């Protein structure tokens, strides 16, 4: 059997006396799209923060292609192959769209300080190569005509896409998407959906997705994990999840409407 792209075993973190995530287990295989859902404050983003090295797990471990990732810093995790987007878009706002993507090609730049200071041939070669790569990536997202725009001037939907493009530029094997459809209108959501499908076909990467838009989750996720109060309450195919009484009680319960309106930034 192939080694799974991501394997988390008994992952957990405690803040003071609070168990934010407890005994979280997940296995994601190559090319798979797994959904992570749960009510607000359930610990979804905390799971993301654990998997990307923002927080260090106090219990358990997680593995990327069989390599243990505990104790790695954020940029080391990214270099190993886990990239993410953020719930509230984090772009390099004053920089151009192209520069935003070029930065994430960090690992592909081979030139050193002296090459940069004196503009030696290697500088020009690397810069040109990566500019081409970045443009190719922007083409997938239909952003190539906006390459010279300042990122902050893009409409919201395109900013989301750019953030995904930037994550792809890191050359990752696993992409973590934190509520990519939040704040999007139905057209933009549909566009995002086709985008996700395109990148799955093109790059064959695995995706872990946090999303509140249930119709989106049910449509694209192959498997779903549901957590509440940091504890995994259900796992399975979308159909099973939709019928699971525990999930309905926790997530699709009566106060669901209220929760959707206000989303906490870090605690979710």
């Amino acid at each position, binding site marked *: 059997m192939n080694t799974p792209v991501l394997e988390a075993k008994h992952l957990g973190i405690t803040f003071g006396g609070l168990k934010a995530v407890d005994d979280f287990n997940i296995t994601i295989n190559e090319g798979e799209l797994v959904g992570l859902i749960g009510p607000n404050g359930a610990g979804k983003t905390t799971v993301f923060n654990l998997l990307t090295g923002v927080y260090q797990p106090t219990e358990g471990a997680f593995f990327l292609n069989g390599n243990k990732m505990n104790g790695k810093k*954020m940029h080391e995790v990214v270099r190993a192959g886990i990239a993410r987007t953020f719930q509230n878009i984090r772009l*390099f706002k*004053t920089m151009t769209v192209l520069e935003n993507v070029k930065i994430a090609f960090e690992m592909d730049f081979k030139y050193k300080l002296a090459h940069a200071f004196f503009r030696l041939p290697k500088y020009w070669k690397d810069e*040109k190569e990566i500019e081409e790569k970045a443009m190719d990536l922007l083409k997938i997202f239909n952003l190539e005509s906006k390459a*010279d725009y300042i990122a902050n*001037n893009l409409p919201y939907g395109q900013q989301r896409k750019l953030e995904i493009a930037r994550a792809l530029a890191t050359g990752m094997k696993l992409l973590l998407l934190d509520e990519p459809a939040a704040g999007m209108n139905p057209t933009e959501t549909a566009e995002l959906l086709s985008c996700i499908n395109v990148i799955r076909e093109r790059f064959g990467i695995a995706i872990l997705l946090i999303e509140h838009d249930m119709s989106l989750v049910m449509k694209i996720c192959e498997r779903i994990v549901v957590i509440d109060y940091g504890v995994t309450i259900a796992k399975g195919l979308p159909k099973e999840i939709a019928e699971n009484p525990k999930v309905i009680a926790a997530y699709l319960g009566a106060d669901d409407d209220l929760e959707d309106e206000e989303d906490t930034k870090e605690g979710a």
Partner: protein
Amino acid sequence: MKKSSIKSSLINLVVLIIVFGILIVLCEFDILSNYIRGILMVCCISIIMACSQNITVGYLGQIALGGAGFMGIGAYTAAIITKAMASANILVGEGVPDTLRFLIAILAGGILAAIFGVLVGIPALRLRGDYLAIITLGFGEIIRVVIQNLKFLGGKGFSEGSAGQALVGINRISNLYVVFWVMVICVALMYTFIRSKYGRAIIAIRNDDIAASASGLNITFYKVLAFTVSSFFAGVAGGIFAHYIGSLSAGSFGWLKSTEYVIMVVFGGMGSLTGSVIAAIVLTALPEALREFSDYRMLAYSVALIIVMIYRPTGLLGTYEVSVTRLINKILGKKEPSLHAIKAEVEASGTKEEEVVK
């Protein structure tokens, strides 16, 4: 990309040679007094300092107030080296130009300042914002006090507790023509640094450090690198200063001096090297030009600063760079290739309006 870049560098070089030619003519025909030449020299030093501080304060966005401390390290190192060379008869004599010693000394000053930049940067850059400002201020003062007390730098030793004498007898071998080109090279190197992956990473960290590390950037590395490069050029500026002024006292590298350069950065625009160049010239020349109104000159200086900050809070140029190539294109009426950014703004506001209409 490469072609247009070479073309614009050539244009810049031509402009610089013209400026240099004017400078030579003015100096050789004694049109400029020694006093004015001195101010020009200080302008060159200020330009290097302001640009170097712009790397940390402007591009990296971290308020570091220790610039003068590193300038001091560079100044004392360079001074000691030329003094030692003079006493040991190395590179001294008829056939050897003083400039060679001068260049070796300022390079050494820069390198030592850069080494201290790494040492100070690693602990200091764990902090940010006002904490970083305070800690760099503290490090700058430590450097000053240590220099003040070191015996071989004119101090009385640490046990004495009182300030020592100035370090005197430094060969005044800085030549305005040489310093001009040293300044040009320094600014050019800082420019190429900022326009490389390193500069991009530094600007990205200022924009959003979490997103930067989520893009695979080693934030600590880039922060320390920016601080080190900045310290290096501060050290070079210090070396020039030492050989211009002829005697050094540690008191002239206090925190007030650091703030002076940070003011230049803010005045010219945080994130614009050409802005720093202009601000350095203006803010060095202004107090001198106002010397006639002796009592009121600092007042006028402050008022000028306040006016700029009120009407242009991002500094004179913001993050805009003055480009001779662009200017020439404009004069010739050529269309500019990269105005997309502005177009984007127009279009973005256009889409907003459309949404409202819908």
